């Protein structure tokens, strides 16, 4: 009954392989091409947007270089929109739209070059290395994520098993997420500092604050996902609450947990970055954003933003990979 593989592979082996190639080609055509087209489109829009965004400065540079521009003086151009200036001085606006030191909107290649230069081009121990700053933020993110996940799972277990907790904890959990994190982060830092906690822990706690919530919501739903029939079945075995949890509720909740973890890790990263903003932190992606805005280093801001986005994508991808492996080993098709 199980010998189904042998007869299929022998005569149709070549067919199978070419089929696989065809499938791969199709997936390239239907998978990569549209994605690449969209990316190319976005980059094109970005480049195009640089022209009016940087026109003010471009035209000023042209004026200083002795070219005639309209209107002639910077004072006359002050109230005009970038688009209007670019339309009146197309050559000047085009000439230096993508090469300024401190553009209002840096061009994609400037951001890419800065990203490359501050990751690959520098030793990771350098204070300007984005790898170093990303690691500072990442360590707080991971610590906060671990706290948040543990807290979220514990709260969800309590909520599912106790009606009192369900009624009392859930509203507070929801209220906690309606407070803007940017408002509460400085207070958390100050309060924790006054009891002697500083460094990574306050940032991690802000991450915890943001990341426990999706875990609570997802796990409550997941732990409650077994239907009445499955719970009745365990009752007929005389199963106690503990056994019901480990044998049924917990495994049934795992797909929900992973969905929550993906949201949680992103929230955690945002928490860590926000935690770096109000403290005058000298290290971390948030500190890098802040320093960039102090000194008008837009390229630095954008490269820090992209570093954060790439970090988030990698983290979500990692959780997705763990999810895939774990659920497949459990026989669940994720």
């Amino acid at each position, binding site marked *: 009954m199980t010998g189904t593989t042998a007869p299929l592979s022998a005569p149709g082996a070549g067919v199978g392989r070419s089929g696989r190639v065809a499938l791969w080609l199709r997936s390239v055509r239907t998978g990569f091409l549209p994605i690449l087209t969209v990316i190319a489109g976005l980059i094109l829009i970005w480049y195009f947007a640089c022209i009016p965004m940087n026109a003010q400065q471009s035209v000023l540079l042209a004026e200083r270089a002795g070219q005639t521009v309209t209107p002639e003086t910077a004072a006359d151009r002050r109230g005009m929109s970038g688009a209007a200036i670019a339309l009146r001085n197309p050559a000047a606006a085009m000439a230096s739209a993508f090469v300024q030191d401190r553009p209002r909107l840096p061009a994609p290649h400037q951001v890419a070059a800065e990203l490359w230069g501050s990751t690959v081009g520098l030793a990771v121990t350098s204070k300007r290395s984005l790898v170093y700053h990303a690691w500072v933020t990442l360590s707080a993110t991971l610590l906060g994520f671990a706290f948040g996940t543990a807290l979220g799972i514990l709260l969800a277990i309590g909520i599912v098993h106790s009606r009192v907790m369900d009624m009392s904890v859930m509203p507070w959990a929801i209220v906690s997420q309606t407070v803007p994190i940017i408002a509460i982060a400085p207070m958390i830092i100050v309060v924790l500092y006054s009891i002697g906690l500083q460094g990574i822990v306050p940032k991690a706690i802000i991450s915890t604050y943001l990341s426990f919530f999706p875990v609570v919501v997802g796990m409550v739903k997941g732990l409650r996902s077994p239907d009445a029939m499955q719970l009745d079945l365990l*009752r*007929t075995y005389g199963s106690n609450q503990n056994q019901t949890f480990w*044998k049924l509720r917990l*495994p049934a909740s795992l797909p929900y947990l992973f969905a929550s973890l993906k949201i949680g890790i992103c929230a955690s990263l945002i928490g860590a970055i926000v935690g770096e903003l109000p403290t005058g932190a000298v290290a971390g992606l948030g500190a890098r954003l802040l320093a960039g805005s102090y000194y008008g280093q837009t390229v630095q801001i954008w490269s820090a933003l992209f570093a954060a986005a790439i970090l988030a994508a990698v983290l979500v991808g990692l959780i997705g990979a763990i999810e895939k492996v774990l659920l497949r080993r459990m026989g669940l098709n994720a």
Partner: protein
Amino acid sequence: MTDTDLHPWKNTPGGPEGRGAAPPSVVRADGLNLTFQTNDGPVHALKEVDLSVAKGEFVSFIGPSGCGKTTFLRCVAGLETPTGGTLTVNDMSPDEARRARAYGYVFQAAGLYPWRTIGGNIRLPLEIMGFPAAEKKRRVAETLKLVDLDGFEKKFPWQLSGGMQQRASIARALSFDADLLLMDEPFGALDEIVRDRLNEELLALWDRTGKTMLFVTHSIPEAVYLSTKIVVMSPRPGRISDVIDSPLPRERPLDIRDSREFIEIAHRVREGLRAGMDAV
């Protein structure tokens, strides 16, 4: 044990009283009542239900939706608490009987855990009841053989057809060797061809193991084909309208369904169902 020990077919439909020193009842209900309090007022799910099931009987419960057949089964399993009357399982209360592992329950949906293999699913009750490891292994292998699923131990539920999944769920109910099997429309979601085969297999299983079966169904042919006793129920309030002791022999090939006796019993069941509906 001989057939007559197991199947006191001589009982009159009037009730079990005339039996004298008959074997003790596996399930016995006297004046059983169950009223659910709902927002629309009380609902009489069961009213004055009297029933006695002897060891080794195959009892089918048939009736339209809302007649209380599933509710009665759930009462036997201790999943519902009757509001009146007495109910004993092996001379114990349903709760005690559950602790004594007196019954296995099969639901309409197989309800196998998708994250456990077939073997793992059958092992589930054994794990909860704390059987030793070697015993678990032996019983899983044994019950898999009993339902003709040996070789599928390492497969996951989604790799099996609906009929095979339901066989695995029966194996799960059999694994801890309860003498009583409660089945709530176990084949209700399967197509007729698969259903016929599983019915045949269930009869063979019953014959081999000598277990007592309580079987809820919507299907008249299924009830007549399987049962030694057919309990016809009617709704609002849920009650027993007829108890039919089947004169069919214990050996039942599928084509017995074309026999005169079979058709007569089916006719009586249908009449009972109709009478129950008219009385409402």
